[in-house]
């Protein structure tokens, strides 16, 4: 008798990978990223940063960075609100405590601001205890200078 004459039993286990929920997963991820992305609202400012070859990236979490804008006429803005010079120290102290003493103040100043204004700001920051400062600059490619 032929041995192969028996019925071939059909496997009950599906041989295909179930992919019907793949679209759901992908859309879920898409929606998750769309919802969790936050955009900072900023008024466009005409600030031209100075150039510097030693420009480095700040190694600190974004939430620990306080942005401070200085416009060409010397007015200071923090989080889109104009801040009088005398209040910078209070604000810095408050932020310093909120960020668990890891605060970095990023000074985004126009290149034409007189240094007297910048000095006033750094003195205020010292008074407020915020000692880590980043002078925002544009990276400048200079001949013969290697990026560190």
């Amino acid at each position, binding site marked *: 008798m032929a041995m192969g004459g028996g019925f071939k039993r059909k496997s009950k286990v599906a041989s295909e990978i179930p*992919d*019907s929920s*793949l*679209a759901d*997963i*992908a*859309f879920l*991820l*898409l929606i998750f*990223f*769309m919802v969790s*992305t936050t955009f900072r609202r900023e008024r466009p400012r005409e600030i031209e940063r*100075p*150039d*510097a*070859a*030693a*420009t*480095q*990236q*700040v190694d*600190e979490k*974004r939430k620990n*960075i306080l942005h401070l804008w*200085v416009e060409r006429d010397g007015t200071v803005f923090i989080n889109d609100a104009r801040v009088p010079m005398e209040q910078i120290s209070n604000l810095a102290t408050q932020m310093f405590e909120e960020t668990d003493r890891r605060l*970095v103040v*990023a*000074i985004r*100043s*126009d*290149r*034409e*601001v*007189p*240094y*007297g*204004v*910048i*000095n006033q700001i*750094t003195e205020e*920051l*010292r*008074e407020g*205890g915020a*000692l*880590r*400062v*980043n*002078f*925002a*600059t*544009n*990276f*400048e490619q200079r001949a013969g*200078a290697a990026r*560190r």
Partner: protein
Amino acid sequence: MAIIKKKSKVSDQIPTSSMADIAFLLLIFFLVTTVFDEEIGLQVVLPEQGPESEQEVSPKNLIFFLVQPDGSVIVRRGESPAEQRITGRQVEGLMRQALADNPNVIGVVQTSPQARYEHMIAVLDGIQSAGGTRFSLQLLEG
């Protein structure tokens, strides 16, 4: 008479097999096109306020960069009265030389309140580019 019902050849289901591809494509597109503006600049740690942060430094370890309102820089070493007028671009080479002669040298940047911010940054950049980690930022009096 038996009527054979003809089976419609048009599928009555919406084809969803490519849905996952479309969704992943969108996902990847957004992941790739999102740009985070990175925080770059010159990093400085300010000295603490109060007399406890003051340090005694030997004058021979100091090199003064006096930033003038017009952007030129007057260099003075230690206690020597000799002055040298340079541009902001020349600070790096000068600082490199000073560091090679004396690794403990401290750059003192004294900027006139009328000088533009970019002139101070140019000097600070020169010091940092030369590898100087010890410097002081001050206001130029008078």
